[in-house]
């Protein structure tokens, strides 16, 4: 087990990077603490697999340092970093049986035979493949193969960390949920640092205590699922987390707040103060569909809007409304009823209005 620290890390797949666009990872500092269960969340191509491979040592970073417990490991091979990694697509040694596959990393580590037996049995039980142990691995189904692949990652007891690179991609949804719970249990049982790469927010939040959201080669926010939901640090986090994502509206400065079109949104006084000190014109307001309120009658702090569409998603409804030129999504209970093109009244609770300057959240200073 180890604390993994990434210091001023940057990586480019090109030998002669000429600009920021050539970098898969740009200047990144991050710490994965000992024994934590983390998710690394982001869209395809944001650099998350690159980061994982840099941690495990399959890729040498072009700049910066990787530290395990404060020691530089850049030059060490994955073998010497003693790290386990599970890949997106199952990699099994197909000439071996399932048992031999699971025992392979232990054998390589010269674990005594009696211990190997116990350990393989233990992991096979957790993954529910104990009846397949003596089958040839090549005759397994795709999800069984992935279980074996995962098993090889979990079987070693002394690893610094276990890295998962979208390990459940090939597994069918029901089993997915079960395996995720299993991983979580294994984490609680053995207290190993785990980093789980995924592009699925649900997967991330069921597995991890804290989630790092990656966007365009950078970690834009590192926090608990609640923090990511309530106070997205970057407009991308707002958009990426939640379904549907945050409403993000380009705005301009107005007295006492911001405005878009003819709509004026008053802000908290500290937000106004900070806004005065900022020079950037790239201003955005974000509010979660869950936090917009709809009331049947108008009052001083409501805005009249037009209903464009209502989607019934079974347990809740997504209402698309038009406010001035701007379309907004509002999440409502199943009971909500309104006809298309009818007029409704929206209110935006001030504590849920997030102000973004240059895409990053403006936070109250203590």
């Amino acid at each position: 087990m180890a604390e993994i620290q990434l210091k001023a890390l940057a990586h480019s797949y090109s030998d002669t990077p000429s600009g920021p666009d050539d970098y898969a990872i740009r200047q990144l500092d991050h710490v994965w603490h000992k024994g934590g269960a983390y998710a690394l969340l982001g869209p395809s191509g944001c650099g998350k697999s690159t980061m994982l491979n840099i941690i495990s040592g399959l890729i040498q970073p072009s700049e910066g340092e990787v530290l395990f417990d404060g020691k530089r490991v850049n030059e060490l091979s994955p073998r010497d970093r003693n790290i386990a990694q599970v890949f997106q697509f199952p990699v099994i040694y197909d000439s071996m049986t399932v048992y031999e596959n699971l025992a392979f990393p232990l054998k390589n580590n010269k674990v005594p035979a009696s211990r190997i037996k116990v350990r393989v049995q233990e992991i096979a039980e957790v993954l529910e493949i104990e009846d397949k142990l003596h089958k040839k691995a090549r005759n397994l189904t795709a999800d069984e193969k992935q279980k074996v692949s995962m098993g090889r990652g979990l079987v070693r007891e002394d690893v610094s960390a276990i890295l998962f690179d979208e390990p459940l991609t090939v597994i069918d949804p029901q089993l997915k949920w079960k395996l995720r719970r299993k991983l979580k249990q294994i984490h609680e049982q053995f207290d190993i640092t785990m980093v789980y790469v995924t592009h699925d927010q649900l997967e991330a939040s069921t597995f991890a205590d804290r989630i790092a959201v990656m966007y365009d080669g950078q970690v834009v926010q590192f926090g608990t699922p609640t923090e990511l939901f309530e106070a997205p640090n970057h407009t991308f986090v707002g958009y990426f987390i939640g379904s549907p994502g945050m409403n993000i509206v380009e705005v301009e400065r107005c007295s006492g707040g911001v405005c878009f079109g003819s709509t004026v949104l008053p802000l908290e006084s500290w937000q106004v103060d900070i806004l005065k000190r900022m020079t950037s014109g790239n201003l955005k307001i974000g509010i979660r569909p869950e936090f917009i309120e709809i009331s049947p009658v108008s009052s001083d702090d409501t805005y009249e809007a037009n209903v464009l569409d209502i989607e019934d998603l079974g347990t809740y409804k997504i209402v698309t409304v038009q406010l001035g030129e701007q379309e907004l999504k509002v999440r409502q209970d199943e009971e909500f009823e309104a006809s298309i093109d009818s007029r409704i009244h929206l209110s935006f609770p001030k504590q849920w209005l997030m102000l973004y300057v240059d895409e990053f959240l403006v936070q109250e200073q203590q």
Partner: protein
Amino acid sequence: MDKIPDNRAWWLVLPVFLLVAFSALIPLMTVVNYSVQDIFGPGQAYYVGTEWFKEVLADERLQDSLIRQFVFSGFVLLIQIPLGIGVALMMPKSGVKGSLCLILIAIPLLIPWNVVGTIWQIFARGDIGLFGWGINQLGIDYNYTGDTLDAWLTVLLMDVWHWTPLVALLCYSGLRAIPEAFYQAAEIDRASKWAVFRYIQLPRLKSVLIIAVLLRFMDSFMIYIEPFVLTGGGPGSSTTFLSQTLTTMAIGQFDLGRAAAFSLIYFLIVLLISWLFFTAITHADKEK
């Protein structure tokens, strides 16, 4: 759907039948024809049954060259297969160096067989051949035209030089087909170099190795031109292999009946051994 019985459909098989007949059956039957008759001249043929076969099998000269043939093929496989794998493992994976290596290694394969014999005949000579001269200079008495062991070693060395590249090229292509992910997983699992070879590379080379073993067995078992040019079968008959014995019998002595019987036995041996190799390798790790 109802089947319509119509025996005229058999005509559709005719083209294939003709093709197989001309390519294999008729030539083979000619040999079979010779092998069961004693022919003195046109119109003077006598049916002799299995007499030729019995005679051929009891012939000591043939038995000796059969044993030599097995020893030779055995050594060829024992040396060339591991060596070919080794060379393939050491070749650069890609880039200019990789291509250059491929070309260099493939050169012996492009040389006509009798030229290979000629090259080695000169190369290994003690007086004007670089190789033979060099060995003699080292203080080792080497003379492939006079010494049985030296002749054998030279024939083997020549075959290794000529054909190991084929095994290496086949293995190289097999190795390149292994996805990078397997090496990464092995690296993560802390596998030693040997474990990577034993559990990842070797199992995945199986199909190309089947081809390599079969090709090398068949070719070495039927080898003719190279030793014929190099040693002429000598000294004595120490490097006279089966096909040379057969040729001497058929063309030198014009003993067609015995040669035909012998050809059939030869053919069956090649077929049998190839089949054995193939089944042994493909069934080696089938699930019980």
